[in-house]
């Protein structure tokens, strides 16, 4: 029973972080039709920025997280300027765009490798300590991660559902020409989407690397899991992505608890292969319309 509850709690924590990452992937996919494979590198960059601010410069965790978000938002804007602006709307965008993001991610990861070296760093927790209820360990850091993620995801959901600009983001992802014709500044929407999604990934990196590990290539696996979440949720559906994040998080935690850590990624892949064979549009995706 204790092990089960511990797995549930672990699943909620993982799910929260996957949600933060996957929502960004979904937003970018929905509005720009771009599979952003630099998302994992941005996650790691966020982790290193937070590490530098906290460990090397001695700032508090709040500053470190804010710094990580700002820095990765800036990276998102760079990605926009370098990849999206020169290529969007040109023929071959579908393939060339994701390869360009792979290239950016190689550059970013190797820059981090040169700056910080290959060794795995231990990112300190924002709040040390834990409490135990019924044999289940609740680390304060994990509670913080969960709380921050849930608050941000709820805010993002409300933003997209009710605010003027949030509705505009969804509009652009559904009908680009119509969005232009009602006066939505499409370029600005893209820019904001890239910035927001990168900053969420950076924050995920800053928070999760204190639970997992921090190394230049540490973003790859979380990105893959976020991709699985995105596809399970139905590419482009924000609500679906959030639900899927927790389902996948729980699934992973159970697999880890009962089959071992080595099985978590293979199990998730097997799961998503099975899901797509049965329901190719994912959980909340609509068959004819794979957008937000």
């Amino acid at each position, binding site marked *: 029973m204790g092990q089960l509850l511990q797995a549930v709690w672990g699943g909620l924590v993982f799910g929260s972080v996957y949600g933060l990452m996957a929502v960004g992937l979904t937003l970018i996919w929905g509005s720009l039709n771009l599979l952003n494979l630099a998302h994992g590198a941005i996650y790691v960059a966020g982790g290193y920025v937070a590490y530098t601010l906290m460990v090397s410069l001695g700032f508090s965790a709040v500053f470190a997280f804010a710094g990580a978000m700002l820095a990765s938002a800036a990276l998102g804007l760079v990605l926009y300027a370098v990849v999206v602006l020169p290529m969007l709307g*040109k023929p*071959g965008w579908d393939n060339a765009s994701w390869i360009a993001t792979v*290239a*950016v*991610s190689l*550059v970013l990861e190797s820059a981090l490798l040169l700056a910080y070296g290959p060794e795995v760093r231990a990112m300190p927790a924002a709040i040390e300590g834990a409490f135990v209820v019924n044999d289940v360990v609740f680390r304060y850091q994990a509670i913080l991660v969960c709380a921050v993620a849930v608050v941000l995801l709820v805010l993002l959901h409300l933003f997209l559902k009710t605010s003027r600009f949030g509705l505009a983001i969804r509009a652009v992802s559904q009908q680009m020409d119509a969005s232009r014709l009602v006066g939505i500044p499409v370029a600005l929407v893209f820019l904001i989407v890239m910035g927001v999604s990168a900053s969420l990934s950076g924050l995920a990196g800053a928070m999760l690397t204190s639970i997992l590990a921090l190394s230049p290539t540490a973003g790859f696996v979380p990105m893959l899991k976020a991709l699985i979440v995105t596809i399970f949720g139905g590419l482009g559906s924000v609500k679906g992505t959030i639900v899927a994040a927790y389902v996948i998080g729980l699934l992973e935690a159970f697999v880890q608890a009962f089959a071992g850590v080595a099985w978590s990624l293979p199990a998730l*892949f*097997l799961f998503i292969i099975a899901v797509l064979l049965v329901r190719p549009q994912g959980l909340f995706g609509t068959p004819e319309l794979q957008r937000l």
Partner: protein
Amino acid sequence: MSAVTQGVREREVTPGAGPWRRLNVGAVGLALAAATLVPWLLVQTGQRFVVTLLVTVLVYAMVAQCWNLVLGVSGIFSLGQLVMYAVGGYASSLIAIHLGLSPFLAIWVGGLAAAAIALVIGLAILRLRGVYVALLTLGFVMLLQNYLGTGPEIFGGFYGLKSPGFGFTSNPLLSTYYLGLALFVLTTYAVWRIMYSPVGTAFTALRDSEVYAVSRGIDPFRFRLLLFAYSAFFTGVAGAFMAHYQQSTTPASLSFTLLTNLIMMIVLGGWGTFWGPIVGAVLLVFLDGFILKDISAGWHALVLGALLAVVVIAAPEGIAPPLGRFLKRAADRFLPDDEDEDDDEEAEVAR
């Protein structure tokens, strides 16, 4: 149909009217002669290292060509070519180890095994849309890597298998190179056949407008499955050849680094073009072997990543097409009339 009408028909086809064309025997002969003689000269002059690089070029060029057929020509978003590469290596090695089959025969079994696996994977993924295919094929790569590394003992775990060598007694390096060259020529011919035939046109049509292609009677699923297995066969042969050449097969043949390197070859050379993967393989292997040999891993990845970014963003057609045009211009200037036809062809092919 009688030979006479066939002859008449052939003359009616103007060059450049259809994307399929005849092989230029002169140019191919010249290239083959160079590919045969140059390594021999290199060995004679003590440049064995360059020949080992050439063997690597041959193998990666085979895989890159096959992958380009899937990715660039027919537009299947597959990241799973390394699965076929690894299956070829493992199948061939296992057969050679346990059944004592000669590696010269085992490599073909490797190819068949890869094609069979491709059929299974293809059945599962080829009805799905782009991004899903990318993720699932990447999933297959990681699943297989994990399975081979931690699964049944027969696969040898992370250290893999000790594949039997080809057992050349005289001049093993040069002999291996010639074997590789033969396989490369076979693969290249197979790819050429697909790209410059009505079938290849069907694939391009599918990539560019599925609706149109379907309306012209092309069944996308069957065509893609066929191509997937076809390209897997030659990829498997390449993997098997590499296994027996290196006398080892490990899960590292599914590594993400190799995956990005191969994609880089395709993109740098020229996505969807005939020459692209070959030019890209030469470029990248020699870049790795000479210019980037002594720098640290970080700078290595940084340089390659930046190069890839610049090519994708600034010169999306890759290096082969401009190179082809340049060669054609140069040839036009220095070799008027006589050779003109070849060069036309080269430039067109590169396009």
